[in-house]
């Protein structure tokens, strides 16, 4: 195919065909100027005004890390969004058909421009690789960024003392066991300030997800599996725990509140609760990182029971037959 710009009599109108270099850059400078101004206003406006209030807040180090990450991402995303939007509005205004104006010119310049293509690819790659690296750093630094790391976490906090709290998800509530206080199990989640907490999250039935919103912690609760997440609170206050993995009919109602209190208050609460619940705690199974509910009754009789219907081989050592309850 011959190059239409060099073949035959110039069929294209004069003027736009002889687009000068200055004419092109004139548009570019305008676009860049508008873009720079809007970003210079928008980014600091966001970062300093909205940034400190971005969820999930600063109640823990992981929450603060997530907030910081979000702010950095937004500061980078806003120029991208603004760039595309400014360009599109400019193009619509300048080159809409109803405005009149020269016919567009085809040819190799319209079909591609090595500089722009390479520039685009390089810029997007740089941004994206930076974000991947930044994200990895932010993941590793605070000890897993509050996300569930599975049973063998590799990014563990540097603190020497860690308070383990087990989160047990079941259909349809969360309960919490405190192994260092005798293993009592309670519906309330109270944690001490300035202490690294190790959440050991597991489930007794289907997959749930322990999402402590203001703590910046989210870890799926899987049956027969321990999922570990770390955080260190740095502010006092209350927080909400919601299940964030669809687990059945009452998933939307599966939430409770929790509190970050001073270490002294926490000790007092833990001791008091241990005493209050001691009668039942004796009956609970020994603390373990996972619990396998025995087939008899606890799985609804779904799988055939390998043991005799009236056998005593059960998790809790009963001698009762399997009933309708």
């Amino acid at each position, binding site marked *: *195919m*011959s190059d239409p710009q060099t073949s035959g009599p110039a*069929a*294209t109108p004069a003027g736009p065909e002889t687009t000068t270099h200055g004419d092109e850059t004139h548009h570019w400078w305008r676009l860049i100027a508008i873009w720079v101004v809007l970003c210079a206003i928008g980014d600091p406006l966001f970062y300093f005004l909205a940034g400190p209030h971005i*969820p999930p807040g600063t109640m823990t180090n*992981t929450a603060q890390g*997530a907030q910081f*990450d*979000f702010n950095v991402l937004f500061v980078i995303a806003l120029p991208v*969004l603004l760039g*595309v*939007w400014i360009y599109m509005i400019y*193009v*619509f205004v300048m080159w*809409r*058909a109803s405005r009149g104006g020269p*016919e*567009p010119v*085809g040819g190799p310049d*319209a*079909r591609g*421009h090595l500089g722009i*293509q390479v520039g*685009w690819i390089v810029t997007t790659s740089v941004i*994206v*690789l930076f974000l*991947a690296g930044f*994200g*990895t750093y*932010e993941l590793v630094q605070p000890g897993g*960024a509050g*996300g*569930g790391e*599975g049973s063998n976490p*590799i*990014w563990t906090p540097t603190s020497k003392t860690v308070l383990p709290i087990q989160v047990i998800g079941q259909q349809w509530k969360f309960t919490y066991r405190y192994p260092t206080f005798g293993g009592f199990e309670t519906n309330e989640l109270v944690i001490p300030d300035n202490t690294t907490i190790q959440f050991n999250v597991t489930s007794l*039935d*289907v*997959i749930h*997800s322990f*999402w402590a*919103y203001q703590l910046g912690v*989210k*870890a*799926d609760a*899987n*049956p027969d*599996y321990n*999922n570990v997440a770390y955080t260190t609170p740095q502010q006092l206050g209350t927080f*909400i725990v*919601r299940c*964030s993995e*669809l687990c059945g*009919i009452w*998933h*939307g109602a599966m939430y409770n509140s929790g509190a970050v209190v001073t270490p002294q208050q926490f000790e007092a609460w833990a001791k008091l609760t241990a005493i209050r619940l001691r009668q039942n705690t004796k009956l609970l199974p020994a603390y373990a990182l996972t619990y396998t509910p025995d087939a008899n009754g606890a*799985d*609804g009789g*779904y*799988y055939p029971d390998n043991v005799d219907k009236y056998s005593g081989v059960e998790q809790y050592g009963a001698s009762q037959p399997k009933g309708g309850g």
Partner: protein
Amino acid sequence: MAIDTSVSQFEFPGEEDTGTPQRSIPAWRRSGWLRPHILWAMAGAVVAYLIGHWLGNVIASGYTQVQGSGQNDVAIVLGLSFGVVGWMTGIGALNYPLAKILGYELSPAPPETSWVRYFRLTDDHKVVGWQYAVGVLLFLFTGGFLAMMIRTQLLSPTGHTFGPGTYIEIVSEHGTIMMMMASSAVIGPLGNWLIPLMIGSRRMAYPRVEAFSFWIFMSGYLVIVSALFFGGFPTGWTGYAPLQTQASGGMDAYLVGFFAIGIGMILAGFNLAATIINYRAPGMSWGRVPIFVWGVLATTALLTLATPTLLVACLAGILDRTAETAFFVNEHGGSSFLWQNLFWFFGHPEVYIMALPGFGIVMEILPVFTRKPLFAYKVAAAGMLGVALLSFFVWQHHIFQSGINPDMRPLFMLTTELISIPTGFLFLVTLGTLWKAKIRFDTPMLFCLGMLFNFLIGGVTGVFLSDVPVNVTVHGSFFVLAHFHYTIMGGLIFAMFAGFYYWFPKITGKTLNRKLSKWHFWTFFIFFNGTFFPLFLVGLLGQPRRVFMYAPNLQTLNDISSISAYCLGASFFFFIINFVWSIYLNPHPAPSNPWNSLGLEWQTPTPVPWFNFEHIPVILNDPYHYGEPDAAPVADLGLTLAAVGAPAGSVDHQDLGTGVEGDGDPRPPIL
């Protein structure tokens, strides 16, 4: 010698005149009512369902779990599976294979020209495209209606329009119906209708396979809607085990339905890939292939390679629910992680199956309304192939917090970030095409621009989600929901409507009302953003997905979303009314090429004859040479036989002339 170009020369494969005297067509094959059609399919489905259900009762009534729960999953699974087979038998999909297996030749059916052929198994790809269009719209409106119910429930933080169990059923049904629809939303109607026309072919590579894929797609609709009659399913469209194993009977409908849809997807992908690779007209080198065709080709790779994983997962789920295996149950040696990984290994390419055709449409339509060539065509094609390839390497970003091996998290964060590079090429190409153009804001163009606006937001929020620390906050919340509605609905569905409005005059020969079209676009665009933008904030503020109640302080945002959602639903009436009015009630004929497009499909007369092209065209140029008045035309449509006989891919300009050689066989080479 004059070339006989009369239509009777053209025969579809399988109907060759073998030289023996024409046998008389038996009476039963002449009768329109007795030949297979949709009513037979329905009858077949019902009868087969009853047989399957009965068989299931015979097998499993005595099982402990069945007696205890009062629910016989074996009966439901067998009933539904037999029902799908019965449906396909009734529509006649098994006639040709069975005849061939038994050694018979099916005598040709009389040619059908009436509207009835839209209700049959047909090997005309344009009819299949129409059928898909109706099917896709049926899915869309059913799912959309369910969405209205969801937003009604969420008007009040603690109100209970629907009970919590019913609400979860509605949410799951909505999600599943929409995802089933979206995987074929563009490939089905537009891919089928347009691909042979765009590549200069008279037919698909495997017309019967294509028809089969449509009818099994429709059987999937019936199966998934039947879930509501079995008590629905509570898992959302993601179907996580072991909740899946615990669920009531509707779950079986989900598993069987996805299985059926999956088969249709694999077959459609396979057929389209074979067609695009082998049936391009002579002269259509890869550098001249329309960009929409590139998009479809990239999608077919995902359709054929990713969907089998879904089939395997569904099969394992069915076995867990019926045969008491334990693939997904930890306590008995399985793993709850297995379903997640199998599903998302399919699930992530699945969302690119939805996104890539949308990219293809927008890049195809944009040059027509900017009157400029497509910018960076090669980058566009490479980008779509790159997205397709990379989409297999990112699936664990859906399960970052689930307790996967922690090493995997930075790895998948990296691959997910990397996939945004080829995805961004969409913007490079479209923004470059808009530069110094002459932009006509007709409705198809408006939808393309709307798609770009929405997909930008959707794509950027995807980058937020791929960052693991931010993911800790937003995973499983309404932020994710808003993200994928922006990319799938804001991206694909907008592109689908762009395609519908753009190709409507060619497909139907009628014109759509301009005012109604513009009203549709603006209400759709404004209320779409009004519905889903607040949901980003709702998610950031802590509302998980799929909840029937939420924190009271989020009521205002939810209400804005719900009211916009009602308006969004109402906006579809502009489209429906426009569509029905323009085709059916008050049609006005359309010119043959109202948008002045260079595309090959527009060089055909309107309505497009069933054989597409009088002669197989020879392709001389790509369809984007706007603003290049000296460029060669896209194709030479009336040409000599020497060029026609040439195999696809060769360029045979030298024989253009008046010489008539060759054996006079006008049919495209059949490989």
